[in-house]
């Protein structure tokens, strides 16, 4: 195991008790709402917080063991951090920022600088003179890319990603997401990704731990946990419909051969035909019919109504596969108005058709 955590931390109004593990090269997403204990968990992993009980092992080194009296300070853990803000050292050039970690670990100056330049060229290939620029001369998205290069430069045993996309604007986030996927996931960097975005978890993580009020609510492979949430809590966190399958020419082929039309959701990263992918859409984009709709260029999914969940001023309808239907329909959600539910005059067990426009469906690489 590259990461093995079992810790407890008690505060007056909050207690965290989490056990989780990650294999070498695995990306583990920790998903949860604000106040679930995500930041506390990261603090414990990085060595900025001392838990009340338990242990943290990174690459088979014990870095925290309360019972055994072990507490390795942050700078000797080999645990890197990429936070929401880039936090580049403002007085250093991009190159000096990236070379800082290797230099701190005793890499000779020239070697550290060469590594910094190579990493910068990798994360931001098309910015002339990047190594010599100060952070103030870079955009937010560019700064976050440099921060990523800086975080991986010392080759950490474990990289912590603390909502790395949350502070980026909508234009910069997708590109950063695919960069993270390439650098972290394809680079086999063991990482813990803390996020409240199901999409980030889908694209970046192998496995998901869902955290609520300081406890692990659910954990498992990303697509299983998010695609078929076993608890209403997870379903609320996920908040997205997703269908696993393989990519096929601007669409997704599900396991039973159903083709879901959609559009590529990731800027800059082409998905190859046959690559594992997921189709993602919000429940609000789903229209529901009692009879099969005809002549519509939409994705039409025959389902059986599993449950009706009132949620404020909308109603969420949960789907289950009909007899003999594909497994992946289980748990799909549609948000409709109470009036629409009345018009449909349905109850759990009734057959329904879920439809969703191709423009609402994003196809993301996954798995």
């Amino acid at each position: 195991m590259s990461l093995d955590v079992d810790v407890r931390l008690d505060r007056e109004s909050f207690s965290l008790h989490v056990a989780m593990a990650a294999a070498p090269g695995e990306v583990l997403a920790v998903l949860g709402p604000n106040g679930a204990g995500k930041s506390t968990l990261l603090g414990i992993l990085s060595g900025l917080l001392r838990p009340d009980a338990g242990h943290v092992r990174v690459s088979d080194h014990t870095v925290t063991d309360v019972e055994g009296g072990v507490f390795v300070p942050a700078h000797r853990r080999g645990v890197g951090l990429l936070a929401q803000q880039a936090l580049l050292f403002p007085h250093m050039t991009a190159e000096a920022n990236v070379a800082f970690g290797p230099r701190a670990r005793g890499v000779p100056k020239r070697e550290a600088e060469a590594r910094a330049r190579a990493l910068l060229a990798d994360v931001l290939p098309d910015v002339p003179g990047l190594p010599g620029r100060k952070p103030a001369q870079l955009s937010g998205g560019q700064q976050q890319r440099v921060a990523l290069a800086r975080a991986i430069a010392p080759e950490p045993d474990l990289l912590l990603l603390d909502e790395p996309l949350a502070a980026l604007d909508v234009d910069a986030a997708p590109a950063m997401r695919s960069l993270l996927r390439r650098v972290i996931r394809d680079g086999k960097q063991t990482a813990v990704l803390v996020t409240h975005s199901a999409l980030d978890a889908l694209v970046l993580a192998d496995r998901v731990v869902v955290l609520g009020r300081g406890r692990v609510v659910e954990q498992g492979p990303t697509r299983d946990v998010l695609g078929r949430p076993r608890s209403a809590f997870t379903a609320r966190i996920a908040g997205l419909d997703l269908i696993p399958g393989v990519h096929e020419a601007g669409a997704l082929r599900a396991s039973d051969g159903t083709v879901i039309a959609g559009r590529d959701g990731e800027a800059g990263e082409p998905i190859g035909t046959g690559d594992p992918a997921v189709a993602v859409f919000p429940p609000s984009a789903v229209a529901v019919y009692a009879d099969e709709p005809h002549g519509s260029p939409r994705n039409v999914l025959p389902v059986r109504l599993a449950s009706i969940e009132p949620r404020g001023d909308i109603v969420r309808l949960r789907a289950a596969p009909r007899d003999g239907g594909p497994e992946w329909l289980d748990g799909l959600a549609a948000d409709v108005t109470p009036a629409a539910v009345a018009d449909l005059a349905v109850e759990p067990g009734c057959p329904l058709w879920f439809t969703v426009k191709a423009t609402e469906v994003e196809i993301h690489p996954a798995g």
Partner: protein
Amino acid sequence: MTAPPATRARVPRKPDRHEQSVGLPWFVWIPAGLAFLLIALPVVGLLWKADWSRMPELLLSDAALDALRLSLETAAVSTLLCILLGGPLAVVLARGRLPGLRTLRSVVLLPLVLPPVVGGLALLFLLGRTGLVGRGLDLAFGITVPFTTAAVVLAQTFVALPFLVVSLEGALRTAGRRYEAVAATLGASPALAFRRVTIPLVLPGLASGAVLAFARCMGEFGATIAFAGSLQGTTRTLPLLVYLERETDASGAVALSLLLVVVAIIVIVVGRPRGTEGLT
């Protein structure tokens, strides 16, 4: 690294004639104007009173040159002491986790609110030949501090220290610990993070604090005269000489005062761009 450290890009905003001010209430203008005049007019008064024909003679007298040299030297040494001692003190106040830190901070601010002459007397009672520490120094090493140049430096450091500490502590708090935490996750020991990250980040605050401390040292009067006396060439700094001259030769006092004004203006010009921001 070729560029100077800690240059935070601050582009001064050009005034835009399209911009519509929210407007100030009329009644702030009069007291604001009076306040400005209260500061500016006395300097004008000095200029008006100055005897320009005798200026070279007055400024180049032995007494004046001795006082200027002594003032610059002692202020420089005191500022250095402020940095060497006050810098770490500011770090402890901003970052330390000691019980009673608030009380400690109040004590550090004492010289700001204490009349300097009281500070000078306090130093005298501490370090005088019969004082708490002074007696020991005298008996053990034969050292007497009061009425020496060292006493001038001590008096100036005493009154100027809070300026540097407050300014630097503010800079440290503004910079926060986040950069230090990032440095730690990159493998930097606390010492390395302090040297390569913390210090460069607070350099503007340190510089403005040092400029303020230097200015305070140059103007120091009360503590110096109480603790160090007024001996030409040894402890008679410019402000002391100005006060002395005032009784015998008013135009000499005016000339020396203008010299201090010039020094003050230089300090403001050198230190202001960051200095005033460092105070906020």
